[in-house]
């Protein structure tokens, strides 16, 4: 189909319905508002269910029930609401259920603010809820990528039987850009889920959706099995974009909204004769660690630019593994790093690395 001009939040909702999502359970919160509003308007016409739950806690547990019943299902919220959903997300991971959770991140901690932020990186990639588990975490940086990653997130969640998350922020959710959608698919054509609780129909043994295992050996074995799945995902599913990294002395690591500003900063630095480049992780879990390890052979230093007090920088350091200095520059609380400030940081990083300062 032709390109249309749409808000990020609405494009995500449209993409979700087009890839067969017919169940949305949510609770109002800024700045994901347009996503739920779009679902409320369109889902019923598509023969699906939009339900405003009594809380984020209830919403994520409705997602659990629907996912366990075999549906392609999602919820969306923003940081404080995502914190409330963490118990449910842990249960969903523990019961090996596929679903999509969208976090249109705002500044925190606590009630924080409503302006764009990336301060939920730890929560998204390091667990969030209790127990040994991961989410597939996608961090798009344009409206088109929001739409594309939505269907990919659903497909991968189904493939690996695990929850997926899309991390955006208020800026990405509210901005309007041209977007081209895939043709809608019929949910009936999605791969079957023989493990789902659909009623036995007296044709098969009962199915159980559960995360309780009182025998420690059994629980450990399940965690080991899940970890093997995670290893496969680490090897196969990391996504990233590289820009001008081949000859770069300083490589910026940035994802989502701020990667766009970082891209402009790279161009501006190049115009000043500085060899700058950008690695933009598109999946935050699995983290694209190999490309950082590879570029650590040639670059002089790295600079993680984030809308947080420094969270992804830890994964960049782990990936670079001490080979080169990894610096951090960030703004938080709804403040967004500006291009000139990033260029100044690039220049500072180069000086510091030449001076042997590692942080």
């Amino acid at each position, binding site marked *: 189909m032709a390109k249309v001009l749409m808000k990020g939040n609405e494009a995500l909702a449209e993409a979700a319905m087009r890839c067969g999502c017919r*169940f949305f*359970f949510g609770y109002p919160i800024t700045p994901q508002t347009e996503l739920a509003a779009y679902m409320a308007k369109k889902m019923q016409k598509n023969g699906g*269910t939009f*339900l405003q*739950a*009594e*809380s984020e*806690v*209830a*919403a994520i*547990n*409705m*997602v*659990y*029930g*629907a*996912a*366990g*019943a*075999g*549906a392609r*299902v999602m919820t969306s919220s923003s940081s404080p609401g995502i914190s409330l959903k963490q*118990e*449910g997300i842990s*249960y969903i991971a523990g*019961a090996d259920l596929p679903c999509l959770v969208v976090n249109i991140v705002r500044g925190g901690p606590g009630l924080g603010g409503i302006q764009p932020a990336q301060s939920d990186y730890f929560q998204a990639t390091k667990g969030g809820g209790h127990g040994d588990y991961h989410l597939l975490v996608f961090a798009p940086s344009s409206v088109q990528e929001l739409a594309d990653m939505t269907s990919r997130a659903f497909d991968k969640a189904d493939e690996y039987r695990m929850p997926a998350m899309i991390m955006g922020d208020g800026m990405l959710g509210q901005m309007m850009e041209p977007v081209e959608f895939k043709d809608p698919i019929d949910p009936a054509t999605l791969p079957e889920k023989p493990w789902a*609780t*659909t*009623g*036995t*129909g*007296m*044709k098969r043994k*009962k*199915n*159980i*959706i*559960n*995360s*309780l295992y*009182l025998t420690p050996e059994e629980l450990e074995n399940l965690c080991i099995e899940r970890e093997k799945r995670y290893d496969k995902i680490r090897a196969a599913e990391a996504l990233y974009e590289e820009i001008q990294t081949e000859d770069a002395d300083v490589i910026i690591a940035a994802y989502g909204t701020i990667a766009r500003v970082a891209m402009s900063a790279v161009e501006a630095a190049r115009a000043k004769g500085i060899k700058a480049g950008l690695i933009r992780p598109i999946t935050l879990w699995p983290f694209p660690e190999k490309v950082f390890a590879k570029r650590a052979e040639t670059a002089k230093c790295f600079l993680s630019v984030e809308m947080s007090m420094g969270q992804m920088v830890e994964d960049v350091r782990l990936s670079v593994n001490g080979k080169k200095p990894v610096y951090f520059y960030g703004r938080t609380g709804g403040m967004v790093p500006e291009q000139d400030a990033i260029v100044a940081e690039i220049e500072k990083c180069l000086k510091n690395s030449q001076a042997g300062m590692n942080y």
Partner: protein
Amino acid sequence: MEKIFERPHSLSDFVLSYCPGCTHGVINRLVAEVVDEMGLEGSTIGVCPVGCSVTAYNFFEFDMQEAAHGRAPAVATGIKRVHPDKLVFTYQGDGDLAAIGTAETIHSAARAENISIIFVNNTIYGMTGGQMAPTSLIDQVTQTTPFGRKVENQGYPIHVSEMVSTLKGACYVERVSVDSVPNIRKTKAAIRKAFECQMAGKGFSLVEVLSSCPTNWGMSPVEALERIRTEMMPEFPLGVYKDCTETGGVR
């Protein structure tokens, strides 16, 4: 020889994890009997949340989902919206339903969600070792009210059937008991009515079952059944609190 009595098909041969003398097993069996008798074994999805019935997914022979503490009505909502033609019920205790899960209980009823809740009220948290429940009686001694539940400290017990019956979305609400054979028969009839209400698409149903907990009450099974009659029934009177099943329901 002709077999005249057997385990319901909907009940597995798994050894129940309930304490000796506990009436959970009776209620599990009644649910299974009703599912069998309605011919719904192949089209039932049950939800068992945290509490003494947390492993009930092992006890029933139909599809089951285990739910987080208090969240069973939300989980059941998700299931029912995906499979509106299936029988979807939750099996919840008093701590689960009336403390941590109060919001889910009230809102699923208010939405006229077409699900059934089997609510087992034994006035105590059984699985965790006998703490005060939202339904614990005044002066009831528990692990966390060692000197008895006092109004000035812990307030009053919650009356779930009365509360839920005030909601327009609730179609059928009855409080029953499993203290005696006649009451067990009435409990089975109430469960059947709730499931029929749901299968006819008439809306939310809740059956509150007064049940015993000999272990945590520190009583013999027989004394515990007597306590249901002498202490619980005066506080939680049996009866139908709401019934719109004759008028086409609330949806």
